């Protein structure tokens, strides 16, 4: 099933073993190289916690399920600390072509809820396949230059 970054923001994260709500989705961190969701960020700032995609038992339409509280962890490197601080959040990020031209703002990203594989980027009002993503960081999402012509 297809999910979107925009609609999953704020979704509750629930422990399967205790049925307790552990927090809610702040945003999703992607692995640009593999073009998939790498980590779910829960909360924001110093209190932010992370869950790796592999630790999820389900990314459902109403809740994100994890086995138990132990699946949640703190940021472990600079990139994850930057993500916890909200610097790598994709929504609202500028999209740059490989040729150095701005294409617009990233309005949404869709992904497969079963696998975490990214499907499309919505840049402004136009849809671009996720395979065109070359890199993603605090300044911009960089996309393949052949996509520039379609925008």
């Amino acid at each position, binding site marked *: 099933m297809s999910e979107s970054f925009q609609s999953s923001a704020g979704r509750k994260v629930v422990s399967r073993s205790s049925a307790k709500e552990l927090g809610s989705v702040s945003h999703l961190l992607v692995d640009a190289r593999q073009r998939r969701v790498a980590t779910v960020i829960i909360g924001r700032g110093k209190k932010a916690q992370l869950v790796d995609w592999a630790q999820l038992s389900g990314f459902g339409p109403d809740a994100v399920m994890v086995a138990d509280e132990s699946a949640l962890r703190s940021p472990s490197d600079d990139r994850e600390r930057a993500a916890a601080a909200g610097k790598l959040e994709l929504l609202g990020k500028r999209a*740059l072509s*490989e040729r*150095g031209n701005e294409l617009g703002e990233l309005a949404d990203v869709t992904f497969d809820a079963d696998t975490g594989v990214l499907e499309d980027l919505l840049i402004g009002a136009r849809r671009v396949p996720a395979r065109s993503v070359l*890199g993603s960081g*605090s*300044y*911009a999402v*960089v996309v393949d230059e052949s996509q520039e012509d379609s925008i």
Partner: protein
Amino acid sequence: MLLMTASQIRGLPVVTVEGGEDVAEVRDVIYSPEEGRLVGVTLNKRGFLAGRSRDVLPANAIHAIGQDAVMVLNDSKLVAHEDAPEDVGHPATERNVLENDVLTEGGASLGKVADLVLLVGSSGEVVGYQIDKPGGGQGYIPLPAQLSVSGDALVVPNITEEFVQDDLVGLGAAVDEFRTRLGLT
């Protein structure tokens, strides 16, 4: 053909393709008037550490120059100026063509060089100069046109006078025709 002046390139962020990070910004362009090409750019730091960077970016390490950013594959492309090729790390300042008088072979002054015009998208071929015309106002002349350059003046073929343009769009159209007339293409 997308053309930009050197002053439009100054201040652009330098962004990594692989990382999506702004690792520096363009302080100035380093230009070789003899070769008519960009040899590299000097850099400023970004953000809180703003100020001159010790790193430079050689032209062959540039992935693309666009309207909104200079792209590099990753931050290993930035090199300390002491490790850079001589013409990038220690550019000769007397080669500066700005303010030089543009003289035709026939001895007419077309104006003074105000800025460089680069073909962007690639790593930055210099295709023209922006000039301050003798009678006031600005114009653009295509390159390669100069026959000799001294640091005070540069001498261009007589036909350059026919190709003086009022804007960058006009220059874009004129470059190819100009080169054809000179037998360069």
